[in-house]
């Protein structure tokens, strides 16, 4: 080092202010972009308290909670609640059972099982709206392969999504096709991360497998099951893509789940106030669920980081 360098004064480049504000400076741009999107949320709350129809602007006025109060006696609203809950319960229930079953089948990390689990990701990576179109093609009454297959079983007039009695079944099938892999992949990761010792001890003691499954595997897997189910439940109760692409909520009002109903309320009937109120009700439900979910998820996340 030269003598000149030795006596060079140290530059004062990092003021304490800059150091303290750095984290805020780093996260601010992301926040600003999101705040722009947060404003409409409050607008929606406000709209839900209005009589507001796009085609009748003169009627616009503040009506407090009338939109919500009207729901109480509105059969269409209760139909929406019912359909949304049934849809969410049915899809998540089936996906959970199926996903758990497949995860158990693929539990051993053999090369074949790993390949299978990767291939099973493909439906999950298919856009749900496009998946609905694929199934629409397969259930087409004229040439759909599935229509043909069920006709071999004797159901010659099986109308899939166009028949009110089978529409729910059909969209559930698509939802199950797309999202079961999600639950499967999470539970598989969970299963493979379980400690080996309890299972080895049980095997040594000759404990029956059903006992091992219900008393060891299932309880240890429970946090994963809860996380995966809540995650799916949050998504499923808001389902739009599959239902809209497949039937637009029909036939009739068979599949008028929350978001489809409010979409039509907004664009077809231009009833902004009612549409917003519907979405606020949905938001309240998801907010409740997501709070439980985030707690669960943080617990799991801590565990995953602790192990890793």
């Amino acid at each position, binding site marked *: 080092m030269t003598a000149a360098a030795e006596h060079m004064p140290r530059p004062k480049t990092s003021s304490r202010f800059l150091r303290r504000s*750095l*984290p*805020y400076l780093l*996260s601010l*741009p*992301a926040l600003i*972009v*999101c705040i722009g*999107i947060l*404003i*409409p949320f409050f607008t*929606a709350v406000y*709209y839900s308290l209005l009589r507001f129809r796009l085609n009748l602007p003169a009627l616009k006025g503040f009506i407090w909670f009338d939109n919500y109060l009207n729901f109480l006696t509105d059969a269409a609203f209760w139909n929406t609640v019912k359909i949304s809950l049934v849809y969410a319960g049915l899809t998540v229930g089936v996906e959970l059972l199926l996903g758990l079953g*497949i995860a158990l*089948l693929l539990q051993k990390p053999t090369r074949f099982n790993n390949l*299978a689990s990767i291939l*099973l*990701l*493909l*439906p999950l990576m*298919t*856009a749900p*709206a*496009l998946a609905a*179109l*694929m199934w629409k*093609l*397969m259930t087409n009454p004229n*040439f759909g*392969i599935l229509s*043909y297959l069920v006709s071999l079983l004797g159901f010659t007039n099986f109308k899939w999504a166009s028949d009110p009695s089978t529409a729910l079944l059909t969209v559930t099938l698509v939802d199950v*096709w797309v999202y*079961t*892999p*999600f639950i499967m*992949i*999470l539970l598989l*990761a*969970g299963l493979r*991360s379980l400690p080996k010792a309890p299972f080895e001890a049980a095997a040594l003691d000759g404990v029956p497998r059903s006992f091992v499954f219900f008393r060891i595997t299932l309880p240890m897997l429970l946090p*994963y099951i809860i996380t*995966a189910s809540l995650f799916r439940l949050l998504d499923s109760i808001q389902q*739009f893509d599959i239902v*809209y*692409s497949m039937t637009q909520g029909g036939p009739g009002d068979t599949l008028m789940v929350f*978001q489809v109903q*409010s979409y039509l309320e*907004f664009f077809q009937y231009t009833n902004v106030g009612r549409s*917003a109120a519907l*979405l606020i009700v*949905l938001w309240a439900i*998801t*907010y409740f669920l*997501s709070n439980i*979910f985030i707690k669960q*998820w943080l617990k*799991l*996340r801590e565990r995953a*980081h602790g192990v*890793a």
Partner: protein
Amino acid sequence: MDHTSNLERIIRGGLIALVLIFFLFPIFWIVLMSFQTNETILRIPPSIFFEPTLSNYSALITGKLKTTAGNLDLAFMKNLWNSVLLSTLSVALSLILGVPAAYAFARFRFRLGEDIAFTLLSFRFAPPLLVLLPLSLYFKQLGLTNTYIGLIWVYQLICLPLILWIVRGYFEDISPDIEHAYRIAGNSWWQTFRKIAVPLAMPGIAAAGLLAFIFAWNNFVFALILASADKQPVTVGALAFVTASGIQYGQIAAAIVLSIAPTLALALYAQRYLVEGLSLGAVKG
């Protein structure tokens, strides 16, 4: 578990085969359809043996559909291009915004930090229409309806939370001492971020970027509400295409194949990271 009997092995194998058939058959069948003419598609009983044709793809790519009623212009390639543009630019913007923010959340314990992080996370769970419907009215006033900029902005709702939460975990895994060492060696904060933190978190950043791309690509409802035909991505475009082309089933199938191929290819390429990404890091893959 090592004493699995042959019978059990057979049952397991059979069940796995059934599972694979259920989940892979639709993709297989649509791919087959995309290489068929309407004639062979409508054949009863259906068969997997047919003379393959590329006419569906060529019609989509040239944008000219010959029907008995005359020639029809197809905008499908435009939709495909829109998907590429929207997904790529959205992810790029998300990375620019999200990676520094993820770093801040991982490295600094600062007031509001956790609150901000959770606000961003909660976007992941709110009903999208709740924001989109009022936003469609605002966009009209702002002139953002049916613009790429408006769409890319809204797509941040999909990409940002994903990138933020995955990348944050990767930053947290880097020992702070490594960054300290680089600073003490004589480098500024910014150089340390660029030369140490980002390269070391690169696998996570890449995975988050790929996943965000897939989710942006697969999104339907944002563009359905905020875009018209010329800005629509394939998810919305394909639905319109079905209505427009009526009974050109081979072309519909080909359009679907072209629309899902990029995400499926990416998924296979990045499958290692999918588990972690899908669960926002709750489960390490």
